[in-house]
């Protein structure tokens, strides 16, 4: 069986390689602390459940502090000059799209056609993490194809991956840490507190009001948190699961899908989602840093209304 542990191991080795390459990179002004940051993250993947939770918690705090005081820096990027890339693009043409397309194609094949394939009565692909494992196989196939088409070695692939990880820096771990915050919120009862405040003021005995409260709650909480991933556990735990699924017997898949999209309406409206809304305004040299949000409001607000209607109509499907 191809299990998710295999891909945890690969990612752990990739982070370990990132750490070693940074440590040896004299062009990186913070090479030791950067290497430490990626080395600690490698430990999370290589150690996994064998790490004691207390140690993993301390490790996460150490990583956050290293990133927070700007000790994680990229090395000098050794990308090819643009003329070389253009020449290569002209030479290889549409062939370049083949490995890129291999990832979604293999993922789709794995999560549909190979779903029930077994070898010696054991499933070929880890059924609990089917899509992730399928995608991992797709990524390996893509790397093999890319090496074949561009005549590069897999080691060059690791170097390129390190370049991209370096460029993203601490942003790689931000969604991961936000997910941790979301789980801690759930454990500390933030969802219950939000639900208590919401249900204290809104009568949930009307199905339409419950749908509206769920969608608007998702959007509002995302505006506050800047990330739908943080809002989803709270509002799904506070309204979606107890009220929509528990009281009204809604289909959880419909509740989850439309709930997440309502959260995305919130993402379009908040400066907290800096990567999407504030950075592009700076990039496009707009004097008003909220110009992108203002351009998105006429799409986000009607779409939120559409979500409420869709959830109301489709929840029993």
């Amino acid at each position: 069986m191809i299990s998710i542990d295999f891909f945890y191991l690969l990612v752990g080795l990739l982070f370990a390689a990132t750490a070693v390459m940074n440590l040896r990179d004299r062009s990186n002004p913070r090479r030791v602390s950067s290497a430490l940051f990626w080395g600690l993250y490698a430990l999370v993947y290589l150690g996994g459940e064998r790490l004691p939770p207390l140690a993993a918690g301390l490790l996460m705090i150490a990583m956050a502090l290293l990133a927070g005081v700007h000790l994680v820096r990229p090395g000098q990027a050794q990308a090819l000059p643009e003329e070389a890339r253009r020449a290569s693009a002209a030479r290889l043409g549409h062939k370049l799209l083949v490995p890129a397309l291999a990832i979604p194609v293999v993922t789709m094949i794995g999560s549909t056609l190979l779903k029930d394939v077994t070898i010696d009565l054991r499933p070929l692909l880890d059924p609990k993490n089917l899509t992730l494992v399928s995608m991992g196989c797709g990524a390996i196939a893509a790397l093999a194809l890319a090496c074949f088409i561009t005549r590069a070695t897999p080691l060059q692939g690791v170097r390129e991956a390190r370049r991209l990880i370096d460029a993203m820096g601490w942003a790689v771990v931000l969604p991961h840490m936000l997910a941790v915050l979301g789980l801690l919120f759930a454990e500390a009862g933030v969802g219950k507190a939000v639900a208590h405040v919401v249900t204290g003021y809104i009568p949930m005995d009307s199905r339409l009001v419950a749908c509206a409260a769920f969608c608007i709650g998702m959007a509002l909480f995302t505006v506050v948190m800047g990330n739908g991933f943080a809002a989803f556990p709270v509002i799904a735990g506070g309204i979606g699961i107890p009220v929509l699924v528990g009281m009204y017997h809604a289909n959880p898949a419909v509740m989850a899908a439309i709930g997440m999209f309502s959260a995305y309406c919130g993402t379009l409206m908040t400066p907290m989602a800096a990567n999407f809304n504030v950075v592009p305004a700076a990039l496009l040299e707009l004097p008003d840093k909220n110009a992108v949000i203002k351009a998105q409001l006429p799409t986000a607000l009607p779409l939120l209304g559409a979500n409420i209607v869709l959830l109301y109509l489709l929840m029993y499907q």
Partner: protein
Amino acid sequence: METAVNLWPLLGIAVVVAGFLLRAHPVLVVVAACAVTGLAAAFPVTHILESLGGAFIKTRNLPLILLLPLAAIGLLERAGLKEHAQASIAKIRSATTGRLLTVYLFVRELAAAFGLTSLGGHPNMVRPLIAPMAEAAAEARAGAIPQALRYRIRAMSAATDNVGLFFGEDVFVAFGAIVLMQTILRAEGLEVDPLHMALWGIPTAVSAFVIHAWNLRRLDRRILREAVRGNGAGE
């Protein structure tokens, strides 16, 4: 309600809001919010650390989707994938800003729905290619356009990239949001097929396309009004 609900953990949300308003480092804000939330819930410090650590290990499947394709994508980038994609999209010639951005919205949303989220983005597509093309299309129609309209066109170019990405990627089964939803629902005892969640995202994805395309048509009409006014002034 009869049972007492502890409202103190809501302080964690306050920390997040304050942190971002003060423009503190996002990673530090998240960790500070974790500490405040745990303390407000009256957890002992070791319990907070263990919760964080356990959650950190348990959610380590989330970054896989970002990380696994990097080696292949990095190699392709080195071989000129972006240059090739840019040249291909530049061949789609269209007379108006709105139509150009609608085509981009369509391509971006569809590509994201197939998991190709890296075929776009603000630094590598919008700034060098989409926004200049959108501005050029408006100038071809209305002549010199006022600065405010130029900024609006640029902002709409960025907005189009966001809308296409957000409402396309959630239809792709291996996207992080679907994995996250599955993980959260599983923790609550609900087993949901990721394919179903992707499927029920499609009505919203279509609505997003229709609503945003309509807004792009409104942008076209504004450019047209500007063109009429410009011609009138010129005569």
